[in-house]
């Protein structure tokens, strides 16, 4: 069953179109990673889903209702980022109690255990927390709320390495026990790729790819070797990334549509064939140039 449906959804800020007629559906109880470069509209899209922002045109249905200004959506979804606003007059402990009254699936015992594990002081105030501690506290609220639609917008901002790992593991373990639809946006695909089932890749205000992460990992291959032996294999194919290494060695990334026999032949020609990491691939797919930052330095 699909819980989120978008049809030709657009959002413009003044005249600048951030989301341009995007259409996709999210299935129930899947963990989807929302990936894209800075300013591509990830946050905008997630905020429209949560009902925080109004769409400019097109249609969006979350749990079969339009999310904007909708109480049903706000009870059944939670949007977690590092700017979640909480009443400054309440202590952290009181914030947890307030959340309990709002979210029907809230697990207070679980929230308290996370709270204790991360060494929060119940008497502290939210606005005195550091950047990383704010993210951690918000993440606790996001997990313990157990909303059918759980949205994390760059949840690990400011968290240290250990807390990030703990957060992803806590989220996964709780998801296994209590499946729900989860969307996570992050710039660090490599740290969360194991957690994801699907990837939604945004580029230029459009959905560039929406495929299972396992397909993304096999979507492209890297060929490395002497330019003379590598380049024939790229003929007639779309080159996603190309880089000169040394004098005449080349590394190219192409879509993985060579057959086993062709791959074996390439290997015999001295071409090194490597898988392309999902996070690297996303960088190649979303960049406008083929050589990356190195293109800036060409012909200097």
């Amino acid at each position, binding site marked *: 069953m699909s819980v989120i449906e978008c049809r030709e959804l657009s959002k413009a800020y003044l005249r600048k179109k951030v989301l341009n007629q995007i259409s996709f559906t999210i299935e129930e109880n899947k963990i989807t990673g929302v990936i894209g470069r800075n300013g591509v509209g990830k946050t905008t899209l997630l905020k429209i889903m949560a009902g925080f922002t109004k769409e400019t045109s097109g249609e969006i249905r979350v749990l079969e209702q339009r999310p904007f200004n909708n109480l049903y959506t706000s009870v059944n979804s939670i949007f977690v980022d590092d700017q979640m606003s909480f009443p400054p007059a309440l202590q952290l402990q009181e914030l947890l109690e307030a959340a309990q009254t709002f979210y029907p699936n809230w697990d207070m015992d679980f929230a308290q255990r996370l709270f204790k594990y991360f060494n929060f002081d119940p008497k502290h105030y939210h606005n005195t927390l550091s950047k990383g501690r704010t993210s951690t506290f918000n993440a606790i609220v996001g997990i313990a709320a157990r909303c059918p639609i759980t949205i994390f917008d760059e949840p690990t901002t400011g968290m240290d390495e250990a807390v990030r790992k703990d957060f992803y*593991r806590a989220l*996964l*373990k709780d998801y296994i026990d209590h499946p729900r639809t989860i969307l996570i946006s992050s710039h660090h695909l490599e740290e969360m790729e*194991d957690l994801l089932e699907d990837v939604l890749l945004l580029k230029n205000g459009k959905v560039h790819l929406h495929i299972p992460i396992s397909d993304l990992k096999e979507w492209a291959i890297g060929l490395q070797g002497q330019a003379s032996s590598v380049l024939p294999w790229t003929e007639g194919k779309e080159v996603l990334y190309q880089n000169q290494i040394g004098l005449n060695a080349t590394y190219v990334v192409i879509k993985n549509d060579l057959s086993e026999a062709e791959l074996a032949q390439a290997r015999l020609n001295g071409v090194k064939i490597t898988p392309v990491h999902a996070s690297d691939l996303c960088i190649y797919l979303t960049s406008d140039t083929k050589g990356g930052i190195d293109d800036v330095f060409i012909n200097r």
Partner: protein
Amino acid sequence: MNGNFESNQKVYSQYQLAEMFTINPATAAKGLNILADEGILYKKRGLGMFVAEDAKENIANKRKSGTLKQLVQELVLESERLQITEQELMDMIKAALYKEGRK
């Protein structure tokens, strides 16, 4: 291969695997299904996945015709690059064999 699992023994469920390796349960299920498709595991409805009777031979055959063959090919390629003669290569292989104490 190491005998961690015996034939007809139940293997970990997708949820156990997901927790063990912090991976998405759907990914774990895909992995189990690949093994089932290759005949290394078999499904019992409602009970889970079990190790097939001939899983060990099955894996051994696959590695012989796949992985080992490719390793040998790379070995030959590398020795050509280094201009090692056939005799030298054979001697090296033999030396490695005796070191392992197998012959």
